[in-house]
C-alpha cells in the first residue's frame, strides 16, 4: 500500500511539474524574451497583503521598483503606488503547445509595475517566465533523448538476447565500448565534431540525437538480461512448441516482460539527460541566447559578480530539485514494484 502511495505521489508531482511547463505560456507572466530594460538584475518582487499604512487588501499587490539615484544597479521600492495582482489577466499573446493562440496569463500586473517573482536576469527578463519556457526545451530534450536511447536499447538488447550467438556477442562488445567511454566526454567529443555556429534548432536536434545515441548501452544490457531469462519461461517455450514465429514470440511474449526495466530506465535516464543538456548549455556548447533553456538560465552564474551578488539567479537550479526528486522516487518505486512482480 505504501509503495503504491509512493509511486502515485511521484507521478502526481511529475504530472504537475510537467503541466506547468507544458502550459508555460499561461503560467508565465511574461514571454521568455520580454525585456524590461529599466530593471536588470531586479530582486524577486515581494507580494504584499498589507500596505504601508497597515491596511489589509484582499487582493494581493506589489509595489513598483525605482532606480536608486546614486547607486546604479541598486533598486528602491516605490511605495507611492500599489499594483494589484490580476488573475487571468490579458497579456502578451502566446501559443498553447505551439498551436492554439491565447493571451490569458494566470498572473499579471498593470503596465508600469512588474511582477518578477523569481527576480529578473541581466537583460531585465523575468526569471520565472524564462524558467517555465526553458523547461519546455530542456525537458523535451530529456524526454526525446530518453525515448531514443531506450527504444534503441529495446531493439538491440532484445535482438541480442533473443537470437544470441555472434550477434549477441558483437552487440554486447559494442555496448561495453560505449560503457567504457566516460559518457560526458563522449558527448563533448561528438559536440566537438559539430560546427560551433549552426542554427539553434539544429543544435537542439543534434544534441538530443547525440545524447540518445550515446545512452543506449545500459538499457540494452539490462533488457538483454531480461530477455535471456524471459525466453526460457515455460509459456514462451510452449508457444514456441506450438510453432509461434520469432516475431510473434518477441512482441507478444518477451518484450512485454521487459516493461518494468524499460519504465525504470526511462525514469532514470530523463533527469540524467536533462542534466546533460543543462551542463552542455552551461558551458556554452548547447542552445544559446535568446532561447531559454535551463542551462542558459544558469550560465550567467559563471561570472563572479553575478554569482556573488544576485542570489536569485540560483533559484532556477533549486527548482530542479523537486523535478529530479519526482523522477528519482518514481524510478525507485517502479524498481521495487517490478522486482516483486517478476520474482
Amino acid at each position, binding site marked *: 500500500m505504501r509503495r503504491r502511495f509512493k509511486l502515485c505521489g511521484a507521478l502526481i508531482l511529475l504530472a504537475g511539474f510537467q503541466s506547468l511547463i507544458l502550459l508555460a505560456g499561461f503560467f508565465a507572466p511574461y514571454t521568455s524574451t520580454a525585456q524590461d530594460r529599466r530593471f536588470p538584475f531586479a530582486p524577486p518582487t515581494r507580494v504584499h497583503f498589507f500596505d504601508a499604512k497597515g491596511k489589509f487588501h484582499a487582493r494581493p499587490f506589489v509595489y513598483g521598483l525605482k532606480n536608486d539615484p546614486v547607486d546604479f544597479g541598486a533598486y528602491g521600492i516605490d511605495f507611492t503606488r500599489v499594483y494589484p495582482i490580476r488573475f487571468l489577466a490579458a497579456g502578451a499573446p502566446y501559443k498553447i503547445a505551439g498551436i492554439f493562440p491565447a493571451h490569458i496569463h494566470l498572473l499579471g500586473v498593470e503596465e508600469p509595475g512588474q511582477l518578477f517573482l523569481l527576480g529578473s536576469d541581466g537583460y531585465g527578463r523575468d526569471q520565472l517566465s524564462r524558467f517555465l519556457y526553458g523547461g519546455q526545451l530542456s525537458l523535451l530534450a530529456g524526454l526525446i533523448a530518453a525515448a531514443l536511447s531506450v527504444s534503441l536499447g529495446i531493439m538491440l538488447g532484445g535482438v541480442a538476447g533473443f537470437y544470441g550467438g555472434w550477434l549477441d556477442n558483437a552487440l554486447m562488445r559494442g555496448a*561495453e*565500448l560505449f560503457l*567504457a*567511454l*566516460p*559518457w*560526458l*566526454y*563522449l558527448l*563533448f*567529443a*561528438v*559536440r*566537438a*565534431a*559539430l*560546427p*560551433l555556429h549552426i542554427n539553434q534548432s539544429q543544435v537542439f536536434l543534434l544534441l538530443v540525437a547525440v545524447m540518445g545515441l550515446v545512452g543506449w548501452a545500459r538499457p540494452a544490457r539490462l533488457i538483454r538480461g531480461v530477455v535471456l531469462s524471459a525466453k526460457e519461461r515455460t509459456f514462451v517455450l510452449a508457444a514456441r512448441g506450438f510453432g509461434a514465429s520469432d516475431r510473434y514470440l518477441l512482441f507478444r511474449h518477451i518484450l512485454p516482460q521487459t516493461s518494468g526495466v524499460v519504465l525504470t530506465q526511462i525514469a532514470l535516464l530523463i*533527469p540524467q539527460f536533462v*542534466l546533460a543538456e*543543462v*551542463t552542455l548549455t*552551461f*558551458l*556554452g*556548447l548547447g542552445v544559446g541566447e535568446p532561447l531559454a533553456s535551463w542551462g542558459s538560465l*544558469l550560465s550567467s*552564474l*559563471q561570472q*563572479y559578480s553575478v*554569482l*556573488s551578488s544576485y542570489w536569485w539567479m*540560483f533559484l532556477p*537550479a*533549486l527548482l*530542479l*530539485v523537486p523535478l*529530479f*526528486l519526482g523522477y*528519482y*522516487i518514481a524510478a*525507485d518505486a517502479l524498481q521495487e514494484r517490478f522486482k516483486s512482480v517478476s520474482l
Partner: protein
Amino acid sequence: MAMKYIRRRLVHAALLLIAISILSFALLQLAPGDYFDAMRMNPLISAKTINGLRTEYGLDRPLAVRYEHWLVSVLRGELGFSIAYNSPVGPLIWVRARNTLLLTCGATALAWLLAIPVGTWSAKKRGTLADRACGVAMSTFLTIPDLLLYLCLLLLAVRTGWFTAGGMISPGASSLGFWSKAKDVALHLLLPCVGLALTITPMLVRHIRSALIDVLESPFIRAARAHGISGTRVVFRYAWPVAANPLISLLGFSIGTMLSASVLVEVILSWPGLGPLLVEAIFARDVYVVIGVVMLSSVFLVAGNLFADLLLLAIDPRIRVE
C-alpha cells in the same frame, strides 16, 4: 590460472582502448570544418596559404593515414599535434591529467571515507527512524543537480574567503619548500575534492547499505550473533568481507562517474585539469587535444575497472577457481 585471467583482462582492455580510439577518430573526422575555418573569414589570408597550412599539419590526408600517424605519435608519447598550442599534445595533457588524477583520487578516497561509516551505520540500524531519515537525506542529496552544488561551493568560497578557490597553487608558491608547497596544493584541492566527493557519496551509501543488509540477514550472521560476538565485530569481521565483492566493482565504476563529473567541477572551480582543456579545445576545434583527452579519460576508466577486477581476483578465491 590467475595469470591467464589477468592476461585475458589486459588484452580485453587494450582492444577496448583501440576501438575507442578508432571511434573517436572517425567521429571527429566527420566534423565539418577545422581549426583554420576562422582564417577563411579573413580576406587578408589567401586560400592558398590556408591550404598550405592544412597540408603542413596533415589535415588534408585521408583518415587512415592520419590515424596511423597518430598511433605512431602515441607510441612516442606525443599523442598528435595541437594546432592551437603549436606543440605536441602529450606534454600539454600529462600535467592536466596528473591534476585530474589527483582530484579524482582524492575525491574517491574522501567519498568512500564518508560513505563507509554512514552506509554501515545505516545498515546496522535498518528499519529504524534514524535509518529512514538517513535514506531521505541521501535521496535528497542525490537529486541536487551537480551544477548547483558546485556553484554553491564556489559562492561559499567567494563569500567567506575561507577557501582558496581557483587554480592549483598560490602565486609565488613555487619558491616554497616541499611541505609548504604540498600544503598549498592541498588547500586548493579541498573545495573541488569535497564537491566531487559529495556528488557520488549518496550513491555509495545506498549501495553499501543494501549490500550489507543482504549479508546481515543471512543465517551465518545470526549464528555469529547467537555465539555472543559483539555487533561491531560481526559487521566488520563477518559481514563486510562478504559484502565487499559488489562494492569493489562499484569502486571501479565510480571512477567513471567521477571522471564525467570532474569536467564540471574543474570548469566551475577552476581546477587546472582535463576538463577546462577539453572545453577550450572544443571551442578552438583542436581535434587532437579532444581525442587525447577522451582517450586519456577512457584509459583512466578502463584502468579503474581493471584495477577493481584484479582486486576482486586477489581477495575472492572463487574467481581464481573459475
